[in-house]
C-alpha cells in the first residue's frame, strides 16, 4: 500500500491549518456564507438537510487497517457512531459540526486521509478495480497508475476550475469491475500486438440528467505517456467544455456534441505539443510508487483446502452460500478474496458502525495483511484471506452482521442517501432499499433468482447509478409526493448499457411490489442459466411492462 512521503503529508497538514483558519473566519463573521461555501466544498464539507456532511476520499478504494480505525474514531468522536460508504468508494459522515471540522480533519491527516477534491469542479477521487493486485485475470496492478494520477491531479493548478467535476477510473483487467464506461475518463490496461502493456482510453461516460456510455478515443496508450495524454484531454475539456449551463458542463456533453472522433483529434493535436515533456513521470518515480504495491508476503505453502473447510462447505448451507457469492478466486494459490456485505436485511446500504470498522480492521490485521478495499457497490473487501482461514473469518463476519451471502444478488442494492439526508434529493432511496431487502429475505429464493443488480437514486444526479441497474429505480417528486421511475436492462460491466424507462413513475406504495413482479416475470420466462440481464436483453421491455402496468 502507498504511504505518504513528506510532500504528501505536508500538503495535507497545511490544508488542515488553512481550513481551520477559514472556519474561524466564517464563525467570526469575516467570511460570508457565499465566500465560505466554495472553500468548504474544496475540502469535502457540504451542508445537507440535517447537518454538515464530510466526504473523505479513499483513493482507489484502498484502506489500511490503521486508516479504517481512524475513520471509526471520526465516526465515534465527531459523528453519531457510523459512516456511509459511497459509489465513489469514499466515506461520508452525515453529522459533522462546523466548529469541530478542523480537529476532525487534523485527525484524518494523521492517518493520511482528507476531503480534498471530494467536491467541486476538479478531478475527483480516482477509483479502481476493487480486486486490484489480487484478481487472477489482471494484466497489471491499476493502483500504481491510480496513485500517479492521484498525485498529478491533487491541487493541479490548471485543473482546479474545470467546467464541472471530473471522475477517473482505472482497471488492469479485461473484466470490468470498476464501472469504467460510466466515467468521465476511464483507463483499461491491456496488451497490444507487440505484447506491450498500455491503456485503452475512454471518455465521455456519465449518468445524471443526460446519461452516456464512454467512447474509446485511443485503443492503446503507452504507459509512459499517461500523464501527458491525460493533461491533453483535460486541457481540451477545460477550454471547450461548456460553462454557460450547469447541465451541459460535463465532458460527456462535449464529447457527444463534437463526436468522439473530433474530440480525439483535438486531444491528439494537444498531446503532440506536450508529449514527452515535463509532465511525464520519470522511471525512478514509477518504480518508487510501484515498490509500495508489491504483493504481501504470501505463504507459498498455504493449503487450498483443510478438513474443517471441506466439512463446513459440505455441511453448512450458510457457509456454502457465502463461498458462492462473497468469496472470489485469488491469483495466489491458497488465498481468497472476501467481500463483506454492507447490505443486511433492513439495513442502510453502505452504512457501517464504528464498532464494525474497528472489528474489520482487527480482522484485516489478522487475516488480510492489514488491507481493506471499498467497492463502488458500497461493500468492503478483505483482499488476501488464506482459504484455510475462511471458516473463522466467516464466523467473525457473521457475528458482525457483515456476512450476508448476497454479493451480486437482488439484495446487494446500491442506494444513495436520498431525501433522508441529501439536499439535492427529490425522494427517499434508503427506505426503498430496506423494504426490498425485507421482501426478498428468503436467501434460497434470492440465490435462485441469481445475479440481479438493483440500483436506487433519489434524484436525477444518479449517485445511486440507477441508469446502469439491471433494475434501476429513480425517485421523483410529483406534487410533493414521492414517486419512483423504473428502468430495466442497465449494466456497468464490460458490455455496459443504459437502462430503458419502463413506463410512468409508480407511487412509493407500489415500488416494492413492482420489483417483485419484475422478478416473477423473469423467473417465469428465463431459460436455463439465463441471468435477469440476459433475459431482459432477449425479451425487451414488453413482457415486464405488461405485467407492471396491467395491474395498475
Amino acid at each position, binding site marked *: 500500500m502507498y504511504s505518504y512521503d513528506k510532500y504528501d503529508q505536508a500538503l495535507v497538514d497545511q490544508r488542515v491549518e488553512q481550513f481551520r483558519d477559514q472556519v474561524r473566519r466564517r464563525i467570526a463573521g469575516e467570511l460570508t456564507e457565499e465566500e465560505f461555501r466554495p472553500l468548504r466544498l474544496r475540502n469535502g464539507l457540504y451542508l445537507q438537510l*440535517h447537518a454538515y456532511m464530510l466526504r473523505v476520499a479513499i483513493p482507489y478504494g484502498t484502506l489500511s487497517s490503521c486508516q479504517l480505525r481512524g475513520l471509526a474514531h471520526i465516526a465515534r468522536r465527531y459523528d453519531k457512531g457510523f459512516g456511509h460508504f459511497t459509489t465513489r468508494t469514499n466515506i461520508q459522515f452525515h453529522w459533522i459540526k462546523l466548529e469541530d471540522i478542523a480537529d476532525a480533519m487534523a485527525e484524518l491527516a494523521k492517518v493520511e486521509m482528507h476531503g480534498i477534491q471530494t467536491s467541486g469542479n476538479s478531478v475527483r477521487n480516482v477509483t479502481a478495480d476493487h480486486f486490484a493486485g489480487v484478481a487472477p485475470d489482471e494484466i497489471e496492478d491499476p493502483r500504481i497508475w491510480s496513485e500517479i494520477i492521484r498525485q498529478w491531479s491533487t491541487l493541479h493548478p490548471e485543473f482546479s476550475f474545470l467546467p464541472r467535476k471530473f471522475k477517473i477510473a482505472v482497471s488492469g483487467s479485461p473484466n470490468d469491475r470498476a464501472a469504467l464506461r460510466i466515467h468521465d475518463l476511464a483507463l483499461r490496461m491491456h496488451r497490444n500486438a507487440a505484447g506491450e502493456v498500455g491503456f485503452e482510453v475512454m471518455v465521455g461516460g456519465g449518468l445524471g440528467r443526460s446519461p452516456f456510455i464512454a467512447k474509446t478515443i485511443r485503443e492503446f496508450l503507452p504507459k509512459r505517456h499517461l500523464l501527458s495524454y491525460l493533461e491533453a484531454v483535460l486541457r481540451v475539456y477545460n477550454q471547450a467544455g461548456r460553462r454557460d449551463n450547469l447541465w451541459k458542463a460535463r465532458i460527456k456533453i462535449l464529447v457527444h456534441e463534437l463526436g468522439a472522433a473530433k474530440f480525439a483529434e483535438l486531444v491528439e493535436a494537444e498531446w503532440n505539443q506536450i508529449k514527452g515533456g515535463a509532465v511525464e513521470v520519470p522511471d525512478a518515480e514509477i518504480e518508487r510508487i510501484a515498490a509500495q504495491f508489491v504483493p504481501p508476503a504470501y505463504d507459498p505453502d498455504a493449503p487450498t483446502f483443510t478438513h474443517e473447510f471441506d466439512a463446513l462447505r459440505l455441511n453448512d448451507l450458510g457457509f456454502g452460500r457465502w463461498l458462492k457469492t462473497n468469496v472470489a478466486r485469488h491469483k495466489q494459490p491458497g488465498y481468497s478474496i472476501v467481500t463483506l456485505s454492507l447490505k443486511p436485511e433492513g439495513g442502510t446500504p453502505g452504512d457501517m458502525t464504528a464498532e464494525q470498522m474497528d472489528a474489520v480492521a482487527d480482522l484485516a490485521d489478522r487475516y488480510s495483511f492489514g488491507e481493506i478495499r471499498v467497492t463502488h457497490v458500497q461493500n468492503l473487501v478483505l483482499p488476501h484471506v488464506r482459504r484455510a482461514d475462511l471458516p473463522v473469518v466467516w464466523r467473525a463476519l457473521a457475528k458482525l452482521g457483515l456476512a450476508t451471502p448476497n454479493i451480486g444478488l437482488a439484495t446487494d442494492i446500491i442506494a444513495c442517501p436520498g431525501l433522508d439526508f441529501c439536499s439535492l434529493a427529490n425522494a427517499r432511496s434508503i427506505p426503498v432499499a430496506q423494504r426490498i431487502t425485507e421482501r426478498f429475505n428468503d436467501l434460497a429464493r434470492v440465490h435462485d433468482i441469481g445475479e440481479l443488480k438493483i440500483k436506487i437514486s433519489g434524484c436525477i444526479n444518479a449517485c445511486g447509478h440507477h441508469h446502469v441497474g439491471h433494475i434501476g429505480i429513480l425517485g421523483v417528486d410529483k406534487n410533493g409526493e414521492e414517486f419512483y421511475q423504473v428502468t430495466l436492462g442497465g449494466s456497468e460491466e464490460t458490455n455496459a448499457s443504459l437502462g430503458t424507462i419502463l413506463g410512468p413513475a409508480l407511487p412509493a406504495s407500489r415500488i416494492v411490489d413492482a420489483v417483485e413482479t419484475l422478478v416473477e416475470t423473469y423467473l417465469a420466462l428465463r431459460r436455463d442459466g439465463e441471468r435477469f440481464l440476459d433475459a431482459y436483453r432477449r425479451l425487451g421491455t414488453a413482457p415486464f411492462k405488461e405485467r407492471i402496468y396491467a395491474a395498475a
Partner: protein
Amino acid sequence: MVKAVKTPAAQIVTGNRLRDGAVIYLAGDSQWSTDIAQGAVAHDAAEANRLMAVANQAAVDRVVVNPYLIEVAVAGDSIQPVGTRERIRAFGPSIATPPSDRLPA
C-alpha cells in the same frame, strides 16, 4: 381532540444553524429553536416578509445559514411542514441511524 385545520397559506422560517448545521426555526420571540412547534407562523405576506427580514439579519449575524420560508399546516399547538422534504428535515431521517434516531410515526 383538536380538529386539524389545514392552513396552507401559513409559513414559518427555517435554515441551518451555522455552528453545527442543525435544522432551526425562527421562533415567536425572534429566537431560533430546533423545535418546529416553537416556530413563529406568518399568515400573510406582510408577516412573512417581516419574519424573513429578521432571519436575513440573523444570517448576517452568523446564527443561521440560508434562511427561507416553508409552508406549514397548523393544528392547535402542532406545526407540520406540508412537503415531504421539510417533514424529513423537521422529524427525520425516516430511517434508523445508529445509535437510534427514528422519525415518529
